[in-house]
């Protein structure tokens, strides 16, 4: 006799059905939440039509600014590595970024970043949410914010895709008060959600019939509910259907040998390449995560290992986006929780340092081949106006065509600025 068992591990993985269900639930939970009265619908449509996109490379922990974007050779804290010239006259970076140095004419550096947290527990969320003023709500991560503000592109693909090591799933937490609909669809190791692709035993004709049946149910469902609810349901089904039709995005046989060589076969290389493919397909916002950037000990051997793993695929990404003309529409961001201490501790490590660090970016709305802001000669503190993550959120939103000063979310009647209103965009970075 069949005996019901306890749940099986596979049941906890993200399936297509669960994805649809989660999205639908999130949509229902947030039905009626549109951009508020300060955000004119006409502006929203205009923004969406521009097809701006973004890719955020998140180096979890802290990338040492001294071993990357802001080297200080011959200073007390300079470390063992050399600085090298780049394709942008007057800008030097650490020798570990030898490939990226050739693409520097496309990049913009902000070397005067000064943030508020030196711990992982508080820092991750604070940076990712743009450090808004505390209004008793949980703000969205940048990807969710962009998903809300700009929605999907005309590709219809999910607006926020997160490529990460290990497992995937639907990550609603990123969305904060926006609601689950604006969370991230995480692709574990860049792979599609389980059961996303059509079961090969179902013929296209059968699938067509199945969809017709669903449409009939939808129509009957919509007839008894408010239009917003029905629209939300359709929205998430359409997203999933679109992703299902893009089997090619996960077909590794379509990756050329040249791309494999240029991006590298290591984890971050594969994931950044997958990120490029998602951008090419029309995903609005792609986040690529790399973990273990936390070199409290043996920092310089760690950087020699890790920074090079970033350098190779990042340089290839910038080169490809530039060659394809995509940098005109795509915003590229490289971000960490904080920088690392100038001081080298007894374990030859660098600890957390939010006081003076750097962020690299490129693409739409930004100047190219510039380094804005500076640190003092020893690299210990910002020399000149410091810039917090709030300034960067303003800058990035403006680069994407969103005027943050004029826009707010409507959280059930509570107007909430899309970025910290005490900050403003870094004008020297904007094109």
């Amino acid at each position: 006799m069949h005996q019901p068992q306890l749940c099986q591990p596979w049941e906890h993985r993200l399936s297509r059905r669960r994805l649809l269900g989660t999205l639908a639930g999130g949509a229902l939970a947030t039905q009626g939440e549109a951009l508020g009265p300060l955000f004119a619908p006409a502006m929203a449509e205009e923004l969406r039509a521009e097809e701006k996109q973004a890719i955020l490379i998140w180096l979890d922990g802290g990338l040492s600014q001294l071993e990357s974007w802001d080297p200080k050779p011959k200073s007390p804290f300079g470390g063992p590595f050399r600085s090298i010239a780049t394709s942008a006259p007057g800008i030097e970076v650490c020798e570990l970024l030898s490939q990226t140095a050739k693409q520097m004419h496309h990049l913009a550096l902000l070397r005067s970043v000064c943030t508020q947290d030196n711990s992982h527990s508080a820092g991750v969320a604070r940076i990712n949410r743009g450090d808004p003023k505390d209004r008793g709500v949980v703000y969205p991560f940048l990807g969710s914010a962009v998903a809300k503000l700009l929605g999907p592109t005309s590709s219809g693909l999910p607006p926020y895709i997160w490529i990460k090591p290990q497992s995937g799933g639907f990550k609603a937490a990123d969305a904060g008060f926006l609601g689950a609909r604006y969370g991230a669809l995480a692709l574990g190791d860049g792979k599609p959600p389980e059961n996303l692709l059509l079961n090969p035993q179902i013929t296209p004709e059968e699938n067509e019939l199945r969809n017709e049946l669903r449409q009939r149910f939808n129509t009957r469902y919509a007839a008894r509910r408010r239009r917003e609810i029905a629209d939300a349901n359709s929205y998430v089904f359409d997203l999933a259907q679109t992703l299902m039709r893009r089997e090619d995005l996960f077909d590794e046989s379509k990756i050329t040998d040249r791309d494999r060589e240029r991006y590298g076969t290591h984890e971050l290389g594969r994931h950044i390449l997958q990120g490029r493919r998602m951008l090419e397909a029309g995903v609005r916002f792609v986040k690529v995560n790399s973990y273990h950037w936390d070199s409290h000990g043996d920092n310089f051997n760690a950087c020699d290992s890790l920074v090079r793993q970033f350098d190779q695929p990042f340089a290839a990404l910038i080169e490809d986006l530039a060659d394809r003309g995509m940098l005109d529409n795509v915003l590229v961001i490289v971000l960490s929780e904080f920088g690392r201490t100038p001081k080298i501790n007894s374990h030859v490590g660098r600890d957390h340092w939010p006081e003076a660090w750097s962020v690299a970016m490129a693409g739409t709305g930004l100047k190219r081949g510039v380094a804005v802001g500076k640190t003092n000669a020893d690299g210990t503190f910002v020399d000149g106006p410091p810039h917090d993550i709030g300034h960067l959120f303003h800058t990035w939103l403006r680069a994407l065509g969103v005027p943050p000063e004029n826009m707010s979310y409507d959280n059930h009647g509570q107007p909430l600025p899309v970025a910290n209103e005490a900050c403003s965009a870094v004008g020297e970075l904007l094109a």
Partner: protein
Amino acid sequence: MQANALQQQFEPKPLGTPLTYERQLCQARHSPCGRFLVASGYDATIQRWDLSQEPPVKLPPLTAHNGWVQCQAFAPAGERLFTADSWGKICCWQYTESEPRLEWSVESAHDGWIRALAVSPDGQSLATGGNDAVVRHWSADSGQPLSAAPHPGKVFSMAFHPRDKALVSGDLTGLIRQWSADSKTVVREIDARVLYQRHNNQECGGVRQIVFDADGSQLACVGQKSPEGGFATGLPCALVFDWSSGKLTQEMQVGTKEDGFAYDAQFHPAGFVMATSCAFPGRGHVWFWKPGEPQAFYQSNTIPNGRSLSLHPDGKSLALLVSLSANGNGRQLVNGQYDGGSARIHILGFSKPA
């Protein structure tokens, strides 16, 4: 000699006031004559002390390098000092006078960080290796290149055999390669891979130092077992190999995973291994262990964070170089200044030197 007898004879005790330097240093070595102690570090200088006076007199530093100076070696007769830096430069010094003289230098001897340097027993040549994974051979008289050969990994350590015409080099992956004395031919490979681990997305560990005993019958190397990334934890460990067979004869592991890398080691003429390890402030051991014995006869963390040790040629004392640099996240000012860490060299005398 039994362990307790060894301990009675060789337990180290502080002598005098430690030498200090305001920046962190990586490695300390005595000149062959014993009169000079030199130490190099993070500020591209080589610091010198004249030990013939009491207290030791600090001499002007050697200054022609860039980046970090992490390795140095004296010519056997003591007339020259060779140094190498992390920007790829090697220098040959007449170092004994108050005003040192740079005899020759090679600006781009390697592409980047030189991690290891050794001088041949006859003093005619030196070998270097580093992050570019190339073993290079140079004329000691002129700095002219003699040979170059690829290494499978980044070269972290090197030593010439005291009698055989052989050079050994240890790399990040725990591979020790034996070369012909001119570095042109690979003779064999010795497995020290226990000192390496790919942990998460990071390559960790490596053979941090290689030394021979006086008659060349044993080779010891140091690093850490089960090395991990991030906090770079691991078990300080010395591995001892029989030179003729290349077989591992003993693992000399001490402390806990918090005691980090063993950075330096040396055989004492009495036949035991002296090693030191360093990790976060307050961690790390100094230990003396005679091969064949089940445990160290001396092990102490009373002077932690030892980066380097050097036995005085008279065998009566040991210089122990330690790092003094606190860790911690965020802004930490000392008297309004941002402190960058410093170094201290303890001179330790043996209880009853031979």
